[in-house]
Structure formats: structure tokens, C-alpha cells
């Protein structure tokens, strides 16, 4: 017994149509994604590929492929003591940025969560002011603060009978001094985000907890902070990923990476090699290392923190 020919034909036709529909269904998301993928490819993936390619050659901006160096570039870079120092300093900057531009704004947001609307307005204005001032101008103000002879900080120290400090030329003080400026500039923005995140926690939940007998501390720890997770994650990610970027202008304006490279970090070093000494190959190799390090960091962050973040409210 064979199937009726016309029926078999119809089944075949149907399966082809279904197959085409299936392919269409599978392609549809990619079509929607295509514009975004195109721009990501053009502005992210292609430059990364070019950076890697450039890193294999010696040259400047005009003649980037003057001499082939090859993978040895990475061996030299990763075994270079100066580069190790740059990595250590980058980590130091990140630790300070995490303390000053992540933990501190959240802490202050928690402390000021229950103050009156009028008072919170004052806090927001005062803290947000540095964020809206152009970076160069804002940082220039700090040149005066740190001035070794007539600067604000040394004048205060002198008033207390202490010896003046050469803030920006002491290798032990220079990174905290530069990071302080970056934190001051970024603090207000992070504070506002943290405050908005905390305020968005539904009041009925905190009120219900209070009715159940929870005190303020317990409510903060058990109700508010878990629901604040996505905001905290966002702040953590931008502080870690952009922390070194935030320090770029202060380094450039205040120290130029000195003394003897003691205030430089990975991003500033890339700039210095690429646009000051015009060694594009070396700068590109450092960029590739930066991408790998921060790509890995971002991945680990998401994997570890996503589990502990509560999105549903």
C-alpha cells in the first residue's frame, strides 16, 4: 500500500513550506539584530581586530606597519617590569575607585535615604556639582589645591604647624591624590544613581517588614539591599570597567603620569605610547591586554553577581 500520490505531494509541499517557515523563523531574530551587529562589528570588533594586527608591527600613526615584530611583542610586554608596575598601579586605582566611587556613594545614599525632600535636594546639588563641570576645568582647580608652595592643602598643614607635602611628586601619595580627584568628579553621579535605586524599593515591602517587627537595620539589610542589587551591580560594573577612564583626565592634567610613571595606569600608558611617543604597535598591544583583562573581569562579574541579584519585584 502506497500513499495516494496527490496526498504525498501535498505532504511534501507542506513539509517544504514548513521548512521554509522554520528557516524564516530562525532568521528573523538575526534580521532584527543585523543593524546592531553591523554597528558593533564596525565600531567594536573591527577596531579590536585592527588593534591586534597593529600590535604585531612597529611604527607610528602614519606608517603603522613599518617592521614586523610578531607575537614576540606580547612576550616582551608581559615580561616587562615597567608594564607589571603599570598593572599594579591600575589595580590600586581600581581599589581606590571602588572604595570612593562605589562603596561610599551607596553608603551615603543609605544614610541620606530618610532625610527630608528639601535636605536631599541640597545633598544632590552639592554632590552633583563636580559632575557637571567640564573635566579639564574641574581638575585644574585641584592643581591649586595641590600646589606645593601656596596650595590649599599645604596652607592648612602649615596652619597646624606641619611640614608641607609635595603631593603630586611623592610616589607614595600621588595615586591617592589623583584618585581623589577622579572620585570627587564621579561621586555625585554615582550617589544619585544609588539614591534613585534605593528609593525605587516599594514602600509597601518596607512597611510590611516594619509591621512584622523588623527594625531599620534589618529592613535595610534584608529588604532594601537585596532589591537594590541591580543598581549596585550597575554601579559596580561602571566603576570597575570605567574606573581607569575616570582617572585619565586627572592624570593628564595633574601629573602627566609622573613622577617617573608612578601615577600612570593601563589606559594612560596606552595614550602615552600611542600619542606622545607615537609607538602605535606597543600602544596597540597594551590595548589588547586591556581588552582581555577587562573582558574577563566583566564576564566574571556577571557570572558571580547575577546569581545574587534579585530582579523581580
Amino acid at each position, binding site marked *: 500500500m502506497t500513499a495516494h500520490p496527490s496526498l504525498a505531494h501535498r505532504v511534501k509541499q507542506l513539509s517544504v513550506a514548513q521548512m521554509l517557515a522554520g528557516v524564516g523563523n530562525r532568521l528573523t531574530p538575526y534580521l532584527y539584530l543585523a543593524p546592531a551587529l553591523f554597528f558593533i562589528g564596525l565600531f567594536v570588533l573591527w577596531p579590536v581586530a585592527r588593534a591586534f594586527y597593529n600590535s604585531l608591527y612597529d611604527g607610528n600613526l*602614519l606608517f603603522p606597519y613599518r617592521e614586523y615584530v610578531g607575537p614576540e611583542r606580547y612576550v616582551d610586554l608581559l615580561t616587562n617590569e615597567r608594564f607589571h608596575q603599570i598593572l599594579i598601579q591600575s589595580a590600586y586605582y581600581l581599589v581606590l575607585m571602588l572604595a570612593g566611587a562605589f562603596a561610599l556613594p551607596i553608603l551615603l545614599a543609605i544614610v541620606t535615604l530618610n532625610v527630608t525632600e528639601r535636605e536631599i535636594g541640597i545633598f544632590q546639588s552639592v554632590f552633583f556639582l563636580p559632575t557637571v563641570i567640564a573635566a579639564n576645568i574641574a581638575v585644574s582647580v585641584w592643581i591649586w589645591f595641590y600646589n*606645593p608652595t601656596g596650595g590649599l592643602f599645604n596652607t592648612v598643614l602649615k596652619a597646624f604647624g606641619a611640614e608641607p607635602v609635595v603631593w603630586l*611628586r611623592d610616589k607614595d601619595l600621588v595615586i591617592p591624590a589623583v584618585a581623589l580627584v577622579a572620585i570627587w568628579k564621579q561621586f555625585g553621579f554615582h550617589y544619585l544613581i544609588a539614591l534613585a535605586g534605593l528609593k525605587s524599593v516599594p514602600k509597601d515591602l518596607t512597611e510590611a517588614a516594619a509591621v512584622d517587627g523588623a527594625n531599620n537595620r534589618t529592613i535595610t539589610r534584608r529588604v532594601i539591599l537585596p532589591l537594590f542589587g541591580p543598581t549596585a551591580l550597575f554601579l559596580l560594573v561602571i566603576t570597575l570597567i570605567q574606573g581607569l577612564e575616570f582617572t585619565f583626565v586627572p592624570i593628564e592634567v595633574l601629573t602627566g603620569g609622573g*613622577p*617617573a*610613571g608612578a601615577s600612570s595606569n593601563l589606559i594612560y600608558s596606552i595614550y602615552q605610547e600611542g600619542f606622545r611617543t*607615537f609607538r602605535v604597535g606597543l600602544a596597540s598591544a597594551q590595548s589588547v591586554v586591556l581588552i582581555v583583562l577587562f573582558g574577563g573581569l566583566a564576564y566574571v562579574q556577571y557570572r558571580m553577581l547575577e546569581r545574587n541579584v534579585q530582579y523581580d519585584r
Partner: protein
Amino acid sequence: MRRPKYLLKFAAVHLILALCIVLPLGTAGAQDPVTIEYWNINTDTFGGPQVEALIASFEEANPNINVEPRSFSEYQVLQQTLETAIAGGNPPDVVQTGYPYLNYVGTSLPYVPIRELVEKYGGEEFLAQFPQNILDIPVVGGEQIGMAYSLSVPVVYYNADLMREAGLDPDNPPQTIEEWREAGEIIKNELGIHAIVWGYEQDNWTTQGFINSAGGDLLACVDGEWRAVFDSEEAINGMQTWRDLIEAGYSLDASNEEARQALLAGQTVAWVHSIAARAGIQRDADFDLRATVYPQNGDNPVRVPGGGNFLTIYSQDPAKQEAAWKFMQHLLSPEGFTEWTIGTGYVPLLPGLTEDPAYLADFVAENPIQQVGMDMLEKAVTWVSFPGPNGLAAGLRLHEAAELILSGQESAEVALQDAAFEINDLIAGETCSG
């Protein structure tokens, strides 16, 4: 059959008519105004008004040429923007470049050599006005890559009021390091401030002055290759002298801006800086400002790097090239140098201008600070530009060594030896003659 012939004639007549219309237009096009860009580091407070005045007088004399100035805060920023512009196929026409970039420009950028400009557009008479040593300043690998424009030397600016207050004679300021050391002790005890401050930057101008004036050198030609030789005993002594002055409290580890502020705020009696800043300091100082010569270190002759910049042309378009060459000649004319020297402090490079009453004689006679700069000229040596594509990185390493020494983190001996070792690696294979 006659129709095509008629059409052919008709077309030929129209073609001739069209050519009659188009050809004069083409000729008119060649006379169209040319716009050139002049990149410089002359801000409003440092030669900017003089640049505007020089452009105005040039445009008046050359109505078909329009010059658009673009000012940058410092050579580094100008240089990186220049590379980007050249890479983008849109280079500026005339560019001021600091001497530390001389070798880099000569080996890495597509400049138009002076030889080529003279061959194409003339200018032998213009060049003949300059002494050969001035023409030789911007020569790299035997090619003159531009024209020396600004030349400056360091002088010691000092606050005569403070010197008097400390019990010192401002009419007889210290002339040697030893005398400044003695004055430093008095100033420290009497006023509680610094005596003399050298500001320093990544260009190594101040560092080279200390090393050269202690009898040392930065580079030497050894067996046909350039070698860093600033790890010599003389160079180490020079840098250690500087550090000792800071450690004793007579001087300060400071940038140029910090040093300038210290002088203007009365936190130091003297600041060693370029004569090119003369006009700006005179404008800002509200005290009896004077200047004296760079201090001698021991028995060594004073040798200080000649600072400033040279002009280079990058235009590829012939009309722009010619206009740029004309503009460069205007900047380097007696009138151009007169405006430039009065407005800034740079030393004019054409001989005789400072003795000529038509130009700078009266100005120099009435301006003793400028005269100190003129007197220092004979002490000027070439500002070292490290050779090769790693030359700028080499310069940065020397600056870092100076930072380590002056902040007291390392001894002059260790820091200079380490830096010389690194720099010799960076400039290995860079050939020289002599």
C-alpha cells in the same frame, strides 16, 4: 546627407565657444585666493596677539592669500594632532615644531624640504640673510627640513624686592650655584621661602642645562652610532647639585607652572626660565622684576640648550606650498622678527636687528631683561633631540630619571645609569657621523 556635416560644424562652433568661456575661467581659478593653515603654540598669553598681527600684515601685502591660525596649548598636543591630520590626508601648511621633535619629524613625517621650496619658488636671497649655523639648526640627515624660527635661552628672573628684604643686594645677584647656595641659606632664614627654582617638563630642557653646565653631555657619537652618555661623572654631579639644592630647601621640585606661581606669589626669590616668557612675566609681576645670567656650576662653562621652535611646510598642493613659503619668509623677515621679539622675548635670528634703530635697538636698550637673554646667546648649545622612531620615548625616560632624582627616590648615579642603559637600547642602531 548634408545634415551630419551641418551638425558637425554646429558642434565644432559650440565647442570653440565653450572653450572661449571655460579657459578664461580656468585662468581666473588660478588667481583665486589661497587659504593656508598656520599651526602654532601661541596662546593669547604667549605670542597669540603677535601671530594675529603678523598674519594681518602678511594678508595686507598678499591679498590673495588667507592665513588661518590654529593655536595649541603645547607642542605635544600640536604634534599628535598633526599626525592625525597627516594620516587623514589633510595636513596643515605651516607648522611650528619644538626642537625636541626635530629628529622625529625629520625621520618620520612628510615635510617639504627647504631645498625643494627654493627650487620651485625661489628664495635664495632670503636664505642668504641667515648665518649658516642658524640654517643648520633644523637639519636632519643632511636635509634642511624647515627654518629655525624661535630661539630662547634660560635666564634667572628674580624678585628684587624680596632680595632686598632678605638683606641681599639686588644689583649684584648671585652668579654661580655656590653663590645661590649661600643666598639660599640667608633667604631661608630671613624669609622662610625658596631662593631659586628650576621648573622642568618632559622636554628635558632644564635637565639638559644642568647636565651640560656641569660638563656632561646627553648624547655622543661613538663608533658611528648615537649613545646616551649622561651617566658620566660630570652629568651625575650636575643632577646631584640640583637635588642637593632642593633637599636643603633652597630650591623646589616643581613644574614650570608651579615655579611660575611660586615666583609671582613671593614663594621663591628667583625662577630660572626661558627668555621667551619675558613679556608674560613682566605683565604679571607686581614687584621689581629683574633678570640675571644662568648660574655657573664650579669651574665649568655655562652651556644651556637653545629652546624654541622651527617652521616646517607640509602642503602638497603647489599653490598652497608657494603661499606657505611666502608666509614663512614673512615671519622670518626683519619686520616679523621685530614683532615677534617685542611680543614674546624670543631672540631674533637675523643678524644686526638688535643694533638697528629701525628694528630692535631701542627696545633692547630699554629692556635690560631682554639684554640678559641676548648676552646668554653665546652660551647656547643644541637642544638634544633623541634620534630615531624611539627618540620621543627615549626623551621620556630621561625625564623620568630626573623626576626620580629630584623627588629623592633615587640617587643621581643610579637613576642616570638606569636611564642611559634603557635609552641606549631604544636608540640602538641610530647612526651618526663625527
